[in-house]
């Protein structure tokens, strides 16, 4: 350090260099007011919040406003929302949904003392979510289009992983797409910082560094190691989700629609082969693997995706590798030969545009709302039972009611929701609802879900999609439900749920154009 650089690589003095490379100046100002936005109607509403479309009066841009509902005000501002906002503010990547602003709505009457201000998250408006888009029968992705989306998805994910962030809720419903062909990852309600080095090109992910809660990731997209309750998981959990989304884009519907955690594992073994010491070393040692003796089989991936071509199959095989330690990472996946093969990935602007499609648009949320599941408790994002001992002296305060220790490890079978029972073929497309941790909380389904365990917040547009699954449940199951769903009373109850939904869908003018 006793020598000063006389010249920098750019040929200027160090001082000029420093001035030219100054850190950006940042400041902060208060939140916007809701009056800064012109509301253009509700996009939808779920258990976790309403989403409105709005136009910014300042910039004229169209945005989505997501309301943050305060469910248990006892604990103040919802911790998941707080963490998500903090994370989003630190991120900046074109394939990650941007948080543009926070807007506040004050109660109109000043005399109304009990009414609290309402907060909205302001995000760019995106025309579709991937799940909603795939659901439309007239939409068929071309191979080049799939490659284009997948590339963007992997870029966004490798950015997140590089920033030491686990997303922990990868699923088609959380992937937003606009008519310019841009894809963005949304919903960071379950995301958290992870310890350890980010994935490196060409290297296996290896073992995790520390324990995290395994109550994450929607079931249909949940990797086998989580289903077997590995706690020291890694970024590989998100990669599995990408594999599921990729396959979903190929076939047009979720490929692993398990009805319970046990069933989910069976589906995975069907697809990728039953676990052995070779293809999934150490699986027997995982808490969930101990009593398990799956029927030996080889996996039908090859057969199931034979129309997709060898490139796609080879990449799928890497993304959906049972062994989490050698599963491909996002950086390497970007360089997979699949993307070099004909047809080449389309450029975003070449992708056909569609009439906007949100699940919420179709107002399915009416059905959905009925089921307010025991949401991702704080536990899922780190203040829960197994949040690494961080909760000492905390649970006792009612902070994480439901996340309490008893939850741990016994969520397997005893609180499986009853819906799958009298269902015929798997639902055409009820994506596994929302955070799936929901269906594991030890709570009788019929009861009105209330209490300290609802962590109230799902950031993607379609927030709560658990209801889709609900559609397939016998009606009476959700009948006796107190005041929360008064709004439903107005609707006819006699129609069969499936029909009901389809009808409404038609009404909603779902004209998709190429």
């Amino acid at each position, binding site marked *: *350090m006793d*020598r000063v650089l006389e010249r920098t690589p750019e040929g200027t003095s160090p001082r000029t260099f420093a001035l030219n490379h100054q850190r950006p100046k940042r400041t*902060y100002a*208060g939140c916007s007011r809701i009056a800064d936005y012109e509301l253009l109607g509700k996009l939808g509403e779920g258990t976790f919040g309403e989403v409105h479309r709005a136009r910014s009066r300042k910039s004229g841009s169209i945005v989505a406003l997501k309301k943050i509902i305060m469910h248990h005000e006892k604990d*103040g501002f919802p911790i998941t929302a707080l963490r998500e906002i903090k994370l989003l503010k630190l991120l900046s990547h074109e394939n990650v949904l941007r948080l543009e602003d926070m807007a506040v709505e004050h109660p109109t009457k000043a005399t109304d003392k009990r009414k609290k201000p309402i907060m909205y998250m302001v995000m760019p408006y995106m025309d579709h979510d991937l799940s909603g888009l795939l659901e439309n029968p007239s939409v068929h992705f071309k191979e080049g289009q799939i490659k284009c989306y997948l590339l963007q998805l992997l870029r966004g994910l490798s950015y997140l992983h590089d920033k030491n962030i686990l997303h922990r809720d990868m699923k088609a419903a959380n992937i937003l797409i606009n008519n310019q062909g841009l894809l963005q990852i949304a919903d960071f309600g379950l995301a958290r910082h992870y310890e350890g080095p980010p994935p490196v090109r060409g290297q296996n992910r290896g073992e995790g560094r520390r324990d995290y809660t395994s109550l994450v990731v929607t079931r249909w997209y949940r990797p086998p190691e989580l289903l077997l309750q590995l706690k020291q998981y890694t970024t590989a959990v998100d990669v599995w989700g990408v594999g599921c989304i990729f396959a979903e884009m190929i076939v047009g519907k979720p490929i692993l629609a398990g009805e319970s955690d046990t069933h989910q594992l069976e589906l995975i073994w069907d697809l990728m082969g039953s676990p052995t010491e070779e293809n999934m070393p150490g699986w027997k040692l995982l808490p969930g693997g101990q009593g398990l003796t799956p029927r030996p089989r080889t996996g039908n991936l090859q057969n199931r995706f034979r129309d997709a071509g060898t490139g796609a199959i080879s990449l799928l095989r890497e993304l959906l590798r049972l062994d989490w330690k050698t599963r491909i990472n996002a950086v390497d996946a970007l360089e997979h030969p699949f993307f070099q093969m004909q047809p080449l990935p389309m450029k975003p602007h070449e992708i056909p545009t569609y009439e906007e499609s949100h699940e919420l648009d179709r107002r399915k949320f009416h059905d959905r709302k009925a089921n307010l599941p025991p949401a991702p408790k704080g536990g899922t994002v780190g203040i829960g039972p197994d949040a690494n001992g961080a909760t000492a002296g905390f649970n006792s305060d009612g*902070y994480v009611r439901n996340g309490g220790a008893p939850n741990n490890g016994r969520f397997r079978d005893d609180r499986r929701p009853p819906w799958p029972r009298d269902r015929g073929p798997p639902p055409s497309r009820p994506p596994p609802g929302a955070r799936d941790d929901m269906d594991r909380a030890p709570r009788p389904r019929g009861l009105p879900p209330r209490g300290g365990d609802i962590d109230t917040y799902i950031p993607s547009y379609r927030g709560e999609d658990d209801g889709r699954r609900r559609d397939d449940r016998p009606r009476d199951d959700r009948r006796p439900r107190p005041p929360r769903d008064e709004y439903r009373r107005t609707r006819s109850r006699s129609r069969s749920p499936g029909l009901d939904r389809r009808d409404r869908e038609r009404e909603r003018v779902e004209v998709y154009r190429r």
Partner: protein
Amino acid sequence: MAHLVNPLATPAQLYNLKSSSQLPDDLQEVVFTTTQCLTQAAGLLLELPQSTTAQASVLLARYWLVDSPMMHEFSDVSAAALFIVSKMGPLPQSARDIANVYAYLLSSQSPLLRAEKPTGDNPAEYYLSESDYYAFQNRILALEARILYALSFNTHVSLPHPLAITYLQTLDFLGLGDKKDISARVMQHLNTALLSPQMLYVTHQPHALATAAIYCAARDFGAKMPESAWWEVFDVDREELGFLVVGLMSVDNIMRKRREDMPWMNEGAVTRSKVEAEMKQRGLRVGNGTKRGNDEEDEVMRMMDSR
């Protein structure tokens, strides 16, 4: 990059602080520094890592650039800042724990900011009744929302401490023996800067604070530094460094002086009522006449709400 920088105060915010504040400069300084001391003490009692407590201090400083300190009881703002930061970090604290700690720190039994240490132990002094607790909790939650709103949810705080370690390593000051003393002193300077009434953490970026702390520590121990303008390597120019060094060194003296001027500062934590009393003594007024009545009404409403 976003991880390494902080949002800073705008010139307008700093101007407002001085011009529209109801407090004279010296009282404002006293309020700021003693409240930050309170935050630090609470962080210690709650056994929070210093990084958490430091972030709470920075949030509090950011908040007071937006709202006048006299709007709320100082200890409440301090507690709310700790509550928010701990909630986002790995060690969330319950409102109950925070309430207990602040009740103790504000009681006559706490040695904090007291010239004469209290003798004996009388737990009744800091016993918190259920209704007091609910009132406290309501105030904290209201303030939480208020602070988040005022900061536009910019709750990420980048601290200079880790940067300072990297810089020390670069300068080959990290190690055992004398080097250890220097490293420790750097951290002490950085923590002192949190208390500085000049609000250094909202006027300067972490890299500048880290560099200045290293400069001060090296000077304290007479360590040999590079002859050249080494701070430029860390993106700090001479002027900024000079300002920060003076700022870091002056905290102690300022507070010593204020304590001599205002003996009531040695009688426990500074509260709004003490500041108002001092203002009255000086013939100054805080707020306008109707303010008090409203507060009482609010209080009644809150009590009814909490039932």
